[in-house]
């Protein structure tokens, strides 16, 4: 089975009002080429679930988002994501702000087909007050109260992996695959963008086979997107683009979404990459050191 498709064909399955789950973490390994394709599309009213960075910021700034389910939206070295901050402070979006671990449990419940997973997390905090959908339940085994973290079930998951074959076997060679496997398993349909497309024999090496965190029957579409995580990182191939993120912050703070889009988005990934200095420049961005 050949699952290779263009970015625009891949994201065309996303319809108004859908829920999308986005892999990666803050400024790290975000499926930005797919996000940019969504920005170029007319889709709107999305619910977005993410450990958020510029993915969430841009979708909010572009007016594509009805609701965000998140624990943070941050670029790490720039703690406050400028576009998300503006969207929140203007009251433009609905939110469900929960703990990082609750988000993990919600995706796991979605992946396992459970309606909820009981947890202590959130008890005693404003998470419960601010997310009235979260319900407390009794345990059949003790006298305590428990938070019933509901299943999160994205219609579509978008993730960025290092490599894949055309059948959708995906390798994440980065030091961490984050919660990408959970996003993929919780979603009904998964689109994976990859830096490199490889022949299936690539996975015969058992060390590489260990870097495959979900099975190919969880992946519906593969998009060849070299440099596609930019401006986030795709370790070990390239780091995140600190200078670009600074410019991104300035443009969004000063001129809003259109200032950024006019400067960079373009009508295709090719035009985006030439606006940010070219693929070669992206691929030579140094890896982050923490």
């Amino acid at each position, binding site marked *: 089975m050949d699952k290779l498709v263009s970015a625009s064909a891949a994201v065309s399955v996303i319809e108004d009002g859908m829920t999308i789950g986005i892999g990666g973490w803050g400024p790290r390994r975000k499926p930005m080429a797919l996000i940019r394709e969504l920005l170029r599309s007319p889709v709107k009213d999305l619910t977005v679930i993410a450990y958020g960075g510029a993915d969430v910021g841009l979708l909010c700034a572009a007016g594509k988002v009805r609701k965000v389910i998140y624990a943070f939206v941050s670029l790490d070295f720039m703690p406050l994501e400028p576009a*998300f901050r503006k969207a*929140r402070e203007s009251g433009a979006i609905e939110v469900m702000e929960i703990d990082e671990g609750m988000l*993990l449990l919600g995706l796991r419940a979605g992946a396992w087909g459970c309606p909820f997973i009981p947890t202590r997390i959130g*008890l005693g905090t404003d*998470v419960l007050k601010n997310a009235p959908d979260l319900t407390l339940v009794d345990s059949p085994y003790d006298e305590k109260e428990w938070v019933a973290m509901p299943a999160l079930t994205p219609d579509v998951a978008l993730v960025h992996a290092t490599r894949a074959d055309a059948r959708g076997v995906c390798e994440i060679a980065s030091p961490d695959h984050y919660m990408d496997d959970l996003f993929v398993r919780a979603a009904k349909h998964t689109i994976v963008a990859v830096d490199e497309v490889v022949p299936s024999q690539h996975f015969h090496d058992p060390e590489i086979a260990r870097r495959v965190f979900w099975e190919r029957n969880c992946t519906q579409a593969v998009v060849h997107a070299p440099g596609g995580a930019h401006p986030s990182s795709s370790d070990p191939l390239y780091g995140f683009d600190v200078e670009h993120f600074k410019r991104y912050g300035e443009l969004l703070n000063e001129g809003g979404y259109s200032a950024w889009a006019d400067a960079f988005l373009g009508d295709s990934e090719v035009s985006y990459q030439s606006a940010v200095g070219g693929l070669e420049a992206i691929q030579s961005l140094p890896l982050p050191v923490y």
Partner: protein
Amino acid sequence: MQFTLAELMVCAASRIFDDEGEVLVTGIGLLPRLAASLAMRSSNPDLLMTDSQSYVLSQPNAVSGLKSHEGQANENWMGFARIFDNVWSGRRHALVGPSQIDRFGQSNISALGGTHQAPKVQLLGVRGFPGNSISHANSFFVPSHSRRVFVEGECDVVCSVGYNNGRLPRGYSFSDIDVRTVVTNLCVLDFNGPNKQMRVVTLHPGVGLDEVQDNTGFELAVANDIGETTMPSDEQLDLLSQLDPLNARARQLKNNPAGIRQTEETQS
């Protein structure tokens, strides 16, 4: 040896971990991370720490001047999903810098003012604070002790649980909660006052109790044996320069004040 206020705070904060045994220690921010690293290199080599990416280390990485993660003292892989498995076991102690702390030891990093629908200032979001605070020990690092941080009422968004009867979940008691120590630029506090009231334990050299109380939005208890914060030893200062060879710690507090406060007379 001369030392700075940042170094005094780091050494005071490192003492939090002296008797913690084999816990995963997480210092968020340069000075908290330096404090945890110092403890791991001196008083408590049994601590576990990550490289802030995906490996647990048996020796902390330097907080400045690190060129690459290659060659670091990896002990085991531990991606972000796996961190929660450790967090929820309780075998962790985090040292974090919240934007607000209230009299209950509750803290806020999510947002300031306004409403939930439209906060006046959106900060980070609750991140892992709710889960951390109901699972394991937490301490706070406050570079600027003021009424803006130590707020009069409750935090604008309560991200972490504290010693608050009004919010105690059913089946829980204060003994299930472990908010341990607060290190500020003025003093060290704990929660061992009456009914877990926040309490001044030591004052930094040259700081008076009135100054601490004046900069705090609620009434503090005072330890019977209140003393002066222990000054860094030469050995600790030496380790700090190894762990932070580029002296990034000098750029964390405004004007990098001296550890022993200069009076106006000695400044002139």
